[in-house]
């Protein structure tokens, strides 16, 4: 019991210091963190949905899962490159980093659009199918 209390105290200390350190990060980076968190949440939701209902349309499962992870990691990459404390990337202009980010996102979405199976609304369905054929 003695050990347990010490662990609890340590855990609290840890959380406090994490919290304080986190507050110190500049606001623009916090946006990244929020987006990444959001995407991880959606990823978990998608996986649990598939586990519950079964993977009928594996295409759409793949699409959902991988789009979440993909945009999440790309945001992480941008975050790495923009973070001012990161010594190795001092000479990389933030504009260049953002341009790279946009380009890779473009390629990523071009690719992932091919996994569309079907769409609830028939009009949107036609739009997506024609986009797929173009790509």
């Amino acid at each position: 019991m003695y050990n347990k209390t010490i662990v609890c105290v340590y855990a609290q200390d840890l959380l406090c210091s994490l919290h304080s350190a986190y507050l110190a990060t500049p606001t623009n980076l916090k946006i990244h963190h929020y987006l990444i968190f959001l995407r991880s949440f959606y990823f978990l939701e998608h996986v649990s949905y598939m586990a519950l209902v079964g993977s009928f349309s594996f295409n759409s499962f793949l699409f959902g899962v991988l789009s979440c992870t993909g945009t999440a990691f790309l945001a992480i990459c941008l975050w790495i490159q923009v973070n001012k404390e990161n010594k190795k990337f001092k000479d990389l202009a933030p504009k260049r980093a953002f341009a790279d980010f946009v380009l890779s996102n473009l390629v990523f979405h071009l690719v992932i659009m091919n996994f569309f199976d079907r769409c609830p609304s028939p009009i949107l369905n036609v739009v997506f199918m024609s986009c797929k054929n173009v790509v």
Partner: protein
Amino acid sequence: MAMSPPPGTSSSAMRNAFGTVLSALILLLIGVLAFSIRLFSVIKYESVIHEFDPYFNYRVTQFLSKNGIYEFWNWFDDRTWYPLGRVIGGTVYPGLTLTAGTIWWALNAINIPLSVETVCVFTAPVFSAFASWATYLLTKEVKGSGAGLAAAALLAMVPSYISRSVAGSYDNEAVAIFALIFTFYLYIKTLNTGSLFYATLNAIAYFYMVCSWGGYTFIINLIPMHVLLCIVTGRYSPRLYIAYAPLVVLGTLLAALVPVVGFNAVLTSEHFASFLVFIIIHVVALVYYIKGILSPKMFKVAVTLVVSIGLVVCLIVVAVLVALVASSPTGGWSGRSLSLLDPTYASKYIPIIASVSEHQPPTWPSYFMDINVLAFLVPAGIIACFSPLSDASSFVVLYIVMSVYFSGVMVRLMLVLAPAACIMSGIALSQAFDVFTASIKYQLGRSANSKDDAEDNTSTNNAPKDDSSSGKTDKGEEVAKERSSKKGKKKEREPADKPSVKSKIAKKRVLVLPLEASIVALLLLIMLGAFYVIHCVWAAAEAYSAPSIVLTSQSRDGLHVFDDFRESYAWLSHNTDVDDKVASWWDYGYQTTAMANRTVIVDNNTWNNTHIATVGTAMSSPEKAAWEIFNSLDVKYVLVVFGGLIGYPSDDINKFLWMVRIGGGVFPHIKEADYLRDGNYRIDSEATPTMLNCLMYKLSYYRFVETDGKGYDRVRRTEIGKKNFKLTHFEEVFTSHHWMVRIYKLKPQKNRIRGRAKKLKLKTSSGLDSKAAKKNPWI
């Protein structure tokens, strides 16, 4: 000539410019060399597609050029694997055909009317030039441009790569090796620069590799292994994350887009390594991030907490994963990959994979034949990579270790070893030349300076030495082997003009060799290179240029040309109906569909083991049973390759053991022991009666005794056992000029049978036969 101090920035800029132009010129020459060394087959024979597999690719490219890409994606081929057919769009790696189709279309669009065949024949040499340029880029990232040029020159000529990319060898590896090296180059570039742009390019290059060859699993397993190695040796950095994470996600997505791979990209064990390392790298990144924002004491607390909770979670996840993997009989691996990991797997369970000669382990001499001198230089290159060890050089070391292992399992994978060996040898050669030329220049410079220099040897003139060596390392590495001595003479005037500086700089023991030893070593290295070049040219000309559809032999009367294959395919296409089905062993399927344009039963794709076993059983059965089997498959013609008259060793009698084994694997009434006498397959008078009665024997040796009166088989070197016999269910319709290809037609069923024969049959047959006789009115 001499620049007075301050050391001219203009002089180094001029030197840089000169070096760049020189290296560009050398690269161009290397490209021309790579292209032209592969043209021996066109010069010695003709511009024709070689072997078996390229004929399939050629046929697919023809279809693509005629019908367009949408028809290609949806193509269902009903002229092979009769009556099953084959979904070409979903089972072919489209990279090669799309590349050649694009080149053909582009050339025709600018009004250069090359035929599809010409484009197909010359695709491989063009892409090998590209591959050597990619090797230059890759090695430049690892060690500098001097090593790059050396590696590119070596790759242009290495025999193992030539063997699969001569003009006419229109196979997947021709473009796949270029894609492999280019993907590795982009990965290393991303690792060195940390730019997301190169990471995206890397994923696209990986996509091209997946399109081209099944060997892409090598990439998707090697790169995670390297990432793991970097993490374990403490070389984690954000650049590693940027290099790896986009590749996995984008790469897997792109791989899933290729129809051949489809969902295998996420479901099979070949890709699990990449996902596992993906998770690991995220964990490591998180750990480093938290370490960065916490104080060290708090971090220790965090570690203990997380480790205790995380271990439990990990165990649960691992248990789930193990259950999933164990539920599939092969643990999720495909047959071919399993046979790579466990070399004895194929021979035990999948005789088809074991029967392909390219899948056998290589012999020791084949290493020397295929990579020659590089076998000595590779260990030197590995050592050179360790000083200093960077991310890129650790990757190259891992690459060569893995490829050496896999090339030891399968001879076909010597091809993957070739680029790694060239890179390593290029590094080794470049470092060696570095040391020797530096020694020569230092020694010459010292002897020119000896009158100014009052000090002794050990307090070296570090300033001129350093200056010349640093200047030289820019230039000397870019210099090809034969020019090093000239440059040495040009530079030695510079140290002489510079003022002799006392060694105020800390005494460095510079690694310098005596002058004579360096010169002799340089000459020896140049001779080594010369031996390599001679061997490569010989291998390209003599060993690897045979198209194997046309054979030649030298004799006293001159050159004999054996063009039997094309003769018989032409006969087939002119003398049979379009819808006639031809049965042969699977080796000749692609050629028959491409050149003779007839439907075949089995071909080189070997995707259906039972179908091949059916044909094998038919070939090993007596005439009547074989006729029944072939008739049930609607076969009209049977094609047999026979080399006994001229001594051609790859004929069907030599492949007969595989027919028996594969057929016996599916149909238990074919027992291999029935065909063996003392453990050997024999066709002479000692052969077993089953062997003498089987279809393959009869179709090969029918009327053979008429050629020389004794029936002497030049391949097996004996006289045949049964010499005079008649065929009851088949009739011979064609035998080529040198008896290499023999075509037989199935005789149609008799309309009625004479009464006496019918009664005799009913009396002497067993119960089963009489039942069959009652049911079947034709007998």
